């Protein structure tokens, strides 16, 4: 069914947030696949071992690739060396930022916090504001007017997705926010989700970020080379390709304004290398439904839940293809969404309070 619909306001300061509240979609009770408590307790258990091992591999890989980049600097070999360095810099920084932000990667709290702060800076994300942004994303996943992490609206804004291949949409926006925060301000969107009690920390983090970036600029000037920036600031731009590809698979093309992650989130299978980079966030339905399960337990959680979930996409390419086709359709029909059949063993989809009969946004 094709339906016509007007363009919606995806901002957090517009009327859609109020509308979502009236429909009972804000901070609502979401569907969860039933899992017996003893099994869930096992799945939730924290360990330091897997994350310490992965962090050593990550930083070890960066040192090796960084050294290759140094040796090849000034030759064409520097291009593949730094491309590999950039991808190994940005992709795990994104997933480590995410998992340590949840506080589940390591058992020891300070380890989560240290890696969270490092990864936040590496991704040019203000640590405290993004913690709150992501908190909201989990409370109101893909609820229009509430979720600050909807990658692109319907119809899609291709410019945003294309610019994000080299982080040129989000990167400059974040740097602008650093300056705003450093002067003791937050923007209107952040004002919606960062509590007053967290503002001071936000401002000081931005000042520290800017000092580090100023030191980096000074080093480049003093050495007469932008090589130092190839290691620290620029990789969050030139290494972002897989970050955006992963991000596109998470929710795009699926439902908005529902209370069931099986309807608005996508799980896909990946090979072990891509799962290492992503820290198993390809099990994205599972993560959203049970965010207290650490990344290293997500494959087991997937096994426990798959009888109740739509069939996962078989790989990154097929997931991206599905997204691309859906976005192409949404260009002309913003109401188009993908509805995936559930296995016979699954509970029915939970659309949410008074949410089904909205013909404008419910179609397939």
């Amino acid at each position, binding site marked *: 069914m094709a339906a016509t619909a007007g363009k919606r306001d995806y901002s957090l300061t517009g009327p859609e947030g109020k509308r979502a509240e009236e429909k009972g979609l804000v901070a609502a009770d979401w569907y969860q696949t039933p899992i017996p408590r003893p099994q869930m307790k096992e799945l939730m258990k924290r360990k330091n071992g897997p994350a310490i091992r992965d962090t050593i591999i990550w930083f070890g890989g960066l040192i090796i690739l960084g050294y290759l980049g140094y040796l090849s600097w000034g030759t064409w070999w520097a291009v593949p060396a730094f491309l590999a360095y950039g991808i190994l810099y940005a992709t795990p920084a994104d997933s480590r930022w995410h998992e340590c932000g949840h*506080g589940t990667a390591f058992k020891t709290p300070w380890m989560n916090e240290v890696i969270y702060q490092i990864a936040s800076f590496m991704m040019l994300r203000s640590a405290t504001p993004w*913690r709150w942004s992501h*908190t909201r994303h989990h409370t109101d996943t893909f609820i229009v007017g509430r979720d600050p992490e909807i990658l692109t609206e319907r119809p899609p804004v291709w410019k945003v997705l294309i610019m994000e291949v080299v982080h040129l949409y989000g990167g400059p926006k974040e740097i602008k926010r650093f300056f705003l925060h450093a002067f003791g301000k937050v923007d209107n969107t952040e004002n919606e989700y960062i509590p007053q009690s967290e503002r001071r920390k936000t401002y000081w983090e931005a000042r520290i970020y800017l000092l580090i970036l100023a030191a980096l600029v000074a080093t480049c000037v003093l050495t007469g080379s932008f090589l130092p920036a190839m290691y620290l600031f620029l990789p969050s731009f030139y290494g972002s390709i897989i970050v955006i590809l992963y991000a596109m698979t998470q929710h795009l093309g699926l439902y908005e304004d529902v209370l069931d992650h099986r309807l608005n989130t996508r799980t896909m299978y990946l090979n072990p290398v891509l799962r290492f980079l992503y820290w198993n966030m390809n099990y994205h339905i599972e993560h959203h439904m049970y*965010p207290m399960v650490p990344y290293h337990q997500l494959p087991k959680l997937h096994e426990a839940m798959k009888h109740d979930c739509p069939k996962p996409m078989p790989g990154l390419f097929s997931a991206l293809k599905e997204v691309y086709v859906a976005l192409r359709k949404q260009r002309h029909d913003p109401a188009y969404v993908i509805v995936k059949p559930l296995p016979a063993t699954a509970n029915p989809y939970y659309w949410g309070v008074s949410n089904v009969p909205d013909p404008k946004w419910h179609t397939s």
Partner: protein
Amino acid sequence: MAQTEWIEACEVDDIEEEDVIRFDHGDRTFAIYRTDKGDFYASDGYCTHERFHLSNGLVMGSTIECPKHNGRFDIPTGAAKRAPVCVDLKTYPVKLENGKVYIQI
């Protein structure tokens, strides 16, 4: 001073070590904890950040983690330990008698 009373919440054996259960009384809801040391505690049931019940959370030693946003509280004191929780949790006195757990509310 507000009137308080001891209410029978559950049997001691209803809660495993390092676990939490939900207890509803009237229109109020509570979380009853048993820490890794075997001590019992009680608090309001819902997280102070958003309305998610802590009985679905994870007990680690004497800390409870909210199942929705991973905010943490110190179980004995109710102190907020990790964002996004910023407000302490209200706790209630607990006593054990004849194999039963009572909370004073």
